[in-house]
């Protein structure tokens, strides 16, 4: 068993590189407020986690302890899907034992979290933000949307799923929400990329500059990356790399980078970056 800690232990984070400030993260015993089905296969977990809630930024994640015993051994990284006063929201899909354990949590239970972790989205001043979330990849996208909405910045959200039952918002393109479904049961039939193409043709026919933010399955991210590179559109992608620690200690979450001409300050982190402290958000152009 991990040695018990006080309910909130401040832990200053590892620095991403020597020049960057050292981010703070916390170990917090968060109280479960609700844990409910959001849509087919998607669960929403609301947690009272004041330290993490007040320090978090869109695109960051928490690392969730899912077992008292030693099997499974590792925490499970989960993007923060939104915050409220003292509260964070996670959206998760059951894919194995850890997420299955999470789905049994009841209001009042305690969840042992480390966070907020990682480097989140950068929101450039120019370009119209188009937010693209596929499947459970919607979580960091929704948090970014909350942030943009609070800042009064107009944007467009494109959400993809296989079928209507997996959606929890309505298809309202004029209100800034486009849904796509593989089976055509709601919104645009096809993938997120079809949704993006449709958006560009019908809602952004003038071709004004866009700024893309994507999270979702590998095929979607690869498609976005190709498009962004081909058309030179600014694009950030949030990756889900397997992690052992989440705070830069294990070097396990390496992400291959496109070779760069100039010599890097840390040559050992030029070819591979670490998803947990250099990411999970990367610019599409720097990824291999």
């Amino acid at each position, binding site marked *: *068993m*991990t*040695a*018990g*800690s006080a309910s909130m*232990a*401040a*832990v*200053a*984070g*590892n*620095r991403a590189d*020597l020049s960057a400030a*050292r981010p*703070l*993260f916390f*170990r917090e015993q968060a109280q479960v407020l609700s844990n409910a089905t959001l849509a087919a296969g998607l669960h929403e977990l609301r947690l009272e986690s004041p330290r993490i809630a007040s320090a978090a930024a869109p695109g960051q994640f928490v690392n969730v*302890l899912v077992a008292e*015993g*030693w*099997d*499974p*051994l*590792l*925490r499970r990284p989960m993007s923060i899907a939104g915050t409220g006063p003292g509260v964070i929201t996670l959206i998760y899909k059951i894919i194995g034992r850890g997420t299955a354990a999470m789905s049994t949590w009841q209001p009042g239970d305690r969840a042992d979290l*480390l966070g907020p972790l990682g480097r989140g989205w950068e929101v450039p001043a120019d370009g119209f933000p188009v937010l693209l979330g596929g499947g459970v990849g919607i979580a960091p996208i929704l948090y970014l949307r909350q942030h943009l909405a609070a800042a009064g910045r107009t944007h467009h959200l494109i959400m993809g799923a296989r079928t209507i039952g997996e959606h929890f918002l309505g298809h309202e393109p004029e209100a800034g929400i486009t849904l796509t479904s593989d089976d055509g049961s709601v919104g645009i039939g096809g993938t997120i990329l079809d949704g993006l193409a449709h958006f560009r043709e019908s809602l952004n026919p003038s071709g004004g500059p866009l700024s893309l933010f994507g999270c979702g399955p590998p095929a979607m991210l690869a498609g976005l990356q190709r498009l962004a590179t081909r058309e030179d559109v600014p694009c950030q992608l949030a990756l889900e*790399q*397997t*992690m*052992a*620690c*989440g*705070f*830069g*200690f*294990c*070097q*396990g*979450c*390496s*992400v*291959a980078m496109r070779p760069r001409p100039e010599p890097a300050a*840390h*040559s*050992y982190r*030029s*070819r*591979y970056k670490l998803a947990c402290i250099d990411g999970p958000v990367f610019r599409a152009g720097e990824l291999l």
Partner: protein
Amino acid sequence: MDVSLRTSLGSKLVLAAPVMTASGTFGYGDDAPAAVDLGALGAVVTKSITRHPREGHPPPRISETPSGLLNAIGLANIGVDEFCRERLPALAHIGSVVIVSIAGSSMDEYAEVLSIIEAHDPDIGGYEINVSCPNVAEGGMEFGVDCAMTESLTRRLRDLTGRFLMVKLSPNVTDIGDIARSAEGGGADALSAINTVVGMDIDPASGRPSLHTVLGGLSGPAIRPIALACVYKVARAVQIPVVGLGGISDADDVIRFLQAGAAAVQIGTANYRDPAIAVQIIAALRERLAGMGLAAPSDLPGVAA
């Protein structure tokens, strides 16, 4: 009962507590989270340092197994030059003893890394030699699985430093006692055991190995019984102090290793659950010893007793 956790590892090194963080699981020491009270730690062992910066292996590098973790990081590190230039100065002030882990793919590389660090006359506690590296000159055979190589590598490094020199043993051998005696014969001040156990996993859905390198190193609670057996054997084979590690996750585990013959321990994979876990374990150890009415870890009866 007042418990003193002060621990000497031979005549060259005294630790505030018999608990260190293990190489490769706690960064370089100066980059530890600020709220980890480094002063409470016995020592921090750095990530293994090589002559040149290493990118490490391509992903995937880690994979979870029952109560265990497989890794094939590939010694990703900043290299000795940057280490000396940018880390070493800060390490004098972190409040904890720092032990620098050294790795290489030839004897010359180990020697060069150690000499470069020694040339800075650094304020460190000493060195841990990671012998679980393939010896390129000898066709890729690990230093740590061969008695003669272990002894001559140890002697070579011994001649280069008067500081505390600890050799970290690999468990992937027929007789770890033999290797331990070779390192002792080569002049090591202490031995640490164990490094990771060779392992492998496959994703049954895709049929792909779960690590890019196919084979990797297993750590975590799954290997604790293996590590404990190794420490027990090593402690019987040599006269110098033994530092135990492998799956240690709480104060009970620390007690197990001390009873098996270790003079101190290291915490590895458990840091990934909480970077402050070693500090918490030290506090819990103090409480446990007090509860048992013991004044010091050395009062714990050994298993032979």
